[in-house]
């Protein structure tokens, strides 16, 4: 039984670099087996996630890019704040009594927009943090958003609620949501809940003065601007403090920022109507974001190698200098 469990844990070590597997693999598996409950036959799902995260972290360590892993919670918190504030804007923009609703348009239960369950799910996500369910709530909000995105894509517009959210807006929310999964499960989400309270009020006030026909475009531009400003400020702050997170939050949030930019770049009519344009933009921006991250990791590894080489060279020079001085100096008198 133990051998079978050991074998199954060993299989999960494939996430680790080969060198780490050889050096540490047995030790990690032994510790898991020691911790296993009596009669346990398979690794628990949380163990599988732990080994996957541990393996990926070790791969980053091998590239001297651990700052990327360290930056995930802060990038996740920023993304979550943004999704929640945007959700508040969209909710007010569609369900506020001040917004004109065509009485002939279909409704979704008591709601005027099919997007409303999505926005409510996002607003509930930080509130689940005190229960330790923050990440589950974020995952649920992503699922609801994806379901609404599918509905918006396949249901003809005349059968849809009048104020249905455009696809580009839902896709941006999903992108931000995926980044938000990296927020610290309890503390990060709790901090987010505290921080977003004033932000949500500001968003509500802003939404009330935005004319209905311009739904979302101003909010998207403001969100993109806030996100870019936040990562620049963080980048400068971390770099000044020699914190290894440095500019990694900026690299991690490239995709969400590009997705927020989608609604601004595509023409109003085009972005509302074309599924193809949204899909092409989302895939192209994802590829661009992956390329940025890959290049950043490689550059970090190259810089670390250069630093190590410079250090070795320095030691060689010091040693050579010491040897030369020893040769030229007169022998000590006996």
């Amino acid at each position, binding site marked *: 039984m133990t051998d079978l469990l050991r074998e199954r844990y060993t299989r999960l070590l494939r996430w680790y670099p080969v060198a780490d597997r050889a050096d540490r693999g047995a*030790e990690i598996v032994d*510790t*898991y087996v020691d*911790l296993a409950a009596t009669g346990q036959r398979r690794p628990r799902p949380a163990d599988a996630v*732990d080994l996957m995260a541990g393996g990926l*972290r070790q791969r980053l*360590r091998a590239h001297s890019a651990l700052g990327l892993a360290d930056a995930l919670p802060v990038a996740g918190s920023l993304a979550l704040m943004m999704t929640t504030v945007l959700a508040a804007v969209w909710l007010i923009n569609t369900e506020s009594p001040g917004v004109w609703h065509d009485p002939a348009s279909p409704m979704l239960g008591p709601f005027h927009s099919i997007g409303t369950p999505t926005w409510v799910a996002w607003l509930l996500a930080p509130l689940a943090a005190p229960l330790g369910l923050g990440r589950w709530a974020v995952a649920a909000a992503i699922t609801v958003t994806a379901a609404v995105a599918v509905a918006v894509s396949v249901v003809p517009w005349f059968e849809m609620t009048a104020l249905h959210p455009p696809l580009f807006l839902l896709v941006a929310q999903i992108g931000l949501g995926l980044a938000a999964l990296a927020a610290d499960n309890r503390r990060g989400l709790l901090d987010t809940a505290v921080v977003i309270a004033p932000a949500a009020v500001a968003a509500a006030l802003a939404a009330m003065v935005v004319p209905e026909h311009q739904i979302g475009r101003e909010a998207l531009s403001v969100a993109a601007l806030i996100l870019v400003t936040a990562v620049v400020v963080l980048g400068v702050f971390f770099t000044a403090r020699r914190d290894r997170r440095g500019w990694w939050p900026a690299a991690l949030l490239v995709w969400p920022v590009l997705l927020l930019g989608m609604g601004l770049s595509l023409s109003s009519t085009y972005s509302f109507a074309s599924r193809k344009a949204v899909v092409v933009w989302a895939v192209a921006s994802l590829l661009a974001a992956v390329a940025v991250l890959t290049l950043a990791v490689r550059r970090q590894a190259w810089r670390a190698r250069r630093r190590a080489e410079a250090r070795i060279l320095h030691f060689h020079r010091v040693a050579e200098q010491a040897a030369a001085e020893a040769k030229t100096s007169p022998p000590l008198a006996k």
Partner: protein
Amino acid sequence: MKTPLQEPTFLILTALARAPLHGYGLILEVSELSQGRLSLRPGTLYGSLDRLSDDGLVTVDRTEVVDGRARKYYRLTDEGTELLRTETERMRQAVQVATLRLAGGFA
């Protein structure tokens, strides 16, 4: 390493302050120190140990073979002990100030 330390890092260093420990022992000790609030998983623990080792705070003390399995024991370096001492003093002062204020005194 930047201070203040994060709680898991502080607890790992505290667990190693008394005597060298192997991975399994460290997990049990950290759980006990946190009164069951923090249960480290091996993937996370060994990642933290590597990081602490990179920062020169922890090192391998010895390797023992038990039931045919090699067990590495980890210990604090002098730098690790010093950092833990500094951090403990900082926390002690913060607690002292808070206690005084709660009692209605000045600090």
